[in-house]
């Protein structure tokens, strides 16, 4: 991740996010090439499915190490779901668990030096956020009919400011997919750029004669940042999942 293009100057911190067409394809006039981004998504899905199948192959009552890892991830997400939506929320567990595992694996894959970070592209995160948003809309109208619109009309508000409040509520609701996707993408993008910039400082300082003596400082920074990025990679997957649960819960019980 750090040292390509070490031609004295700063390595380009954006280079790592470049999309490369691996297998050019076109579908109905659209560019549907198989890119490095697609490749890493396929790797992530293969890893998740492979890991879960491999871990659960024994189905032992006393789990092996891999099996308990799989069980831990199941119980983590199941616990979140039950806490956020109650027992009936477990109907949505497949969606929630898939989202969590997919984002978490993609974030973690991105931490491997040289790997591509799929979640650092807003197209991907926006796609996931819109998926959740549309699910919430469909679910909300299917379960509550037009009562779902009560979400925008809080009770106990004087009639003369009701239009204003409703407007604010609608904007608040529409801002969900935006903040949902921007947060994940921005955190991954900014984190990886910061890492790269710090790593670039090391090379630049080493090439600057006497200043090379302070090169270990950005190295320390890069090490600390790497640890932080691992934390962020997990936290962002967690936050995305938690919000998905919250939004789905709002769709089931509007008018809080």
């Amino acid at each position: 991740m750090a040292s390509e293009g070490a031609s004295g100057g700063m390595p380009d911190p954006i280079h790592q996010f470049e999309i490369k067409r691996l297998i050019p394809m076109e579908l109905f006039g659209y560019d549907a090439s198989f890119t490095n981004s697609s490749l890493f998504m396929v790797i992530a899905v293969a890893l998740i499915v492979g890991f879960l199948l491999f871990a659960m192959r024994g189905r032992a009552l006393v789990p092996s190490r891999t099996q308990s890892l799989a069980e831990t991830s199941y119980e983590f997400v199941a616990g979140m779901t039950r806490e956020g939506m109650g027992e009936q929320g477990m109907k949505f567990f497949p969606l929630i668990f898939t989202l969590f595992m997919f984002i978490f694996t993609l974030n973690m894959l991105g931490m491997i030096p040289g790997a591509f970070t799929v979640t650092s592209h807003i197209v991907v995160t926006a796609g996931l956020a819109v998926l959740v948003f549309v699910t919430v809309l469909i679910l909300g109208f299917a379960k509550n009919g037009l009562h779902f619109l009560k979400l925008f009309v809080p009770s106990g508000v004087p009639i003369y400011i009701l239009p204003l409040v409703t407007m604010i509520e609608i904007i608040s609701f529409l801002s969900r997919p935006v903040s949902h996707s921007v947060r994940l993408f921005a955190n991954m993008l900014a984190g990886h750029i910061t890492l790269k910039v710090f790593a670039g400082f090391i090379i630049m300082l080493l090439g600057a004669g006497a200043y090379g003596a302070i090169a270990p400082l950005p190295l320390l920074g890069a090490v600390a940042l790497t640890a932080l990025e691992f934390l962020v990679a997990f936290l962002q997957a967690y936050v995305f999942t938690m919000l998905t649960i919250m939004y789905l819960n709002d769709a089931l019980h509007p008018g809080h």
Partner: protein
Amino acid sequence: MPDERNGEGVGRGEISPADRAKFKQRVGDLGKQLEEARSQQAENEPARDSAIRARGMAYGLRMASELVGAVLVGGLIGYFLDQALGSWPWLFLVFFLLGFAAGVLNVIRGFTRLQAEIKEATRGDIGHAVPDDEDD
């Protein structure tokens, strides 16, 4: 309960030597049980603490984007309405402010929820999640 408790020779508020020994035994047992329970609690404490801390960090990461997202959406709605109606920049300004209000609303809602969750998780003793030397 022992029968000798109200027996002759022992005044009100006093207990016989046999009872005293039993009493001491019980106090000793209780002390041991209490110590066991305390050490178990101390084992559970860091887990609970770090879970709450992770939740707090998650909320912290959330809030900034909740605010920015709402302002962005408000501004965009206003901008496109202006483009459609040719009333630039008035609707943009109005919706920008509405977006800001929505953002603040998001943050306040998120915070209220966090507060309720932490109160539930700590059973109300916010601020004592970290063990204090003087409590021992």
